[in-house]
């Protein structure tokens, strides 16, 4: 499943400019070091962190996209930086738990 499919199926709101990518799994954490240690290349990263340094973090672990949950407002600097690096920042008003439930129902995404 790629980023575009996911956006359509889950009704996510794309905030940054990006190129659609294949998603091979999901990683959830709000601690950046956990993401650095555990997220794999091509993973979807779910977080409530919105500050600018999530962009380099997502870029460095080569995340397929970042989903900001709970309807958290994303600062424009974060979106601009993400667009520069082609990192998809997607937003949803759903809390992480509920989004995960929907993701889980969507095979073939698996961790």
């Amino acid at each position, binding site marked *: 499943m790629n980023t575009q499919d996911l956006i359509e199926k889950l009704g996510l709101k794309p905030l940054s400019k990006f190129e659609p990518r294949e998603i091979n799994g999901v990683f959830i954490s709000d601690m950046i070091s956990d993401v650095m240690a555990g997220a794999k290349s091509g993973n979807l990263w779910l977080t409530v962190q919105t500050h600018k340094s999530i962009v*380099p*973090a997502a870029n460095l672990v080569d995340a397929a996209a970042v989903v900001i949950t709970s309807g958290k407002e994303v600062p424009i600097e974060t979106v601009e930086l993400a667009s520069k690096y082609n990192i998809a920042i997607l937003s949803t008003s759903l809390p992480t738990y509920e989004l995960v439930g929907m993701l889980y129902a969507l095979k073939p995404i698996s961790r």
Partner: protein
Amino acid sequence: MPSSRYPVKESISGNWLGNKRRRWGNDQTGRVCFLLWSPGSHVEIRIIKDALAASIIEAEDNLNSTVEHIYASDLMSDVLAFGKPNSVLLTGLATQQAVISAHMAEFKGVVFIRGKRPKDGSIKIARDNHLILLTTELDMFDACVRIDAADRGTLPDSKSGMATQRSPEMLLNHEMYINGKDFVNAGMVSTEVKSILKKIGFDHKLIRRVAISTYEGEMNVVMHAIRAKVILSITPKVVEVIIIDEGKGIPNVDLAMQAGYSTATEEMRALGFGSGMGLPNIKKNSDEMKIESEVGIGTRLEMRFLI
């Protein structure tokens, strides 16, 4: 002695001079080129030597010592009149007079330009007075420009292979800077490192390991230090990232290496940092990791990744 091997403060502060604190110009005589670092800043003599591709005529093991000013002149009366203590003299005058004047003006060393070398008597005077003597093929103008460029971190890669090539095997040697507390730009240095490695075309997994480790190192500087210099060097066998910071240092490195140990503030944790996994992540991702730290001075983190 760790402190002599590890002159953190001395080795990095030369790069924090900033443009405002530097001035170029003529001295009062209008005859000489005069390049001055501001008081209180230091640059390692080794950096000057590298920038000029200079060879050593006389130096005890003291190339790590630092100077605050460069004085460029061929007129020794000017040196005595205007030279400040703790300087290096650039001169084309290869006589005993140059060495004696430099000693009188409390300089730390003399660089002879245009490939000049003083006679043995001068070298003995230098040795007896702990003065460093270097010689470079460059002329006065180029020597001044290159020292200035080295200090700004903008030394161009030259085909003759000067300062940027520390060894014949060095493929790349790139310096970057991180400011402490700068959460806005946090992660940009590691992003740059990643782009460089990607451009060279390294294996994806290697790039990832270097990028993650550099990011953790960078975040440590942003969270805990005042500023740091990051040196990325690449040889055919190894990628090396060295982060030298000026900051409070780590009182207990073993403790800091423990997973989950963190001294981050609540504010940092709210941003998702400070889970105490930084150094363990680096250890996991690098092939060799070395930390040296001095409380109140700073920390030097060396990471190596085999290609």
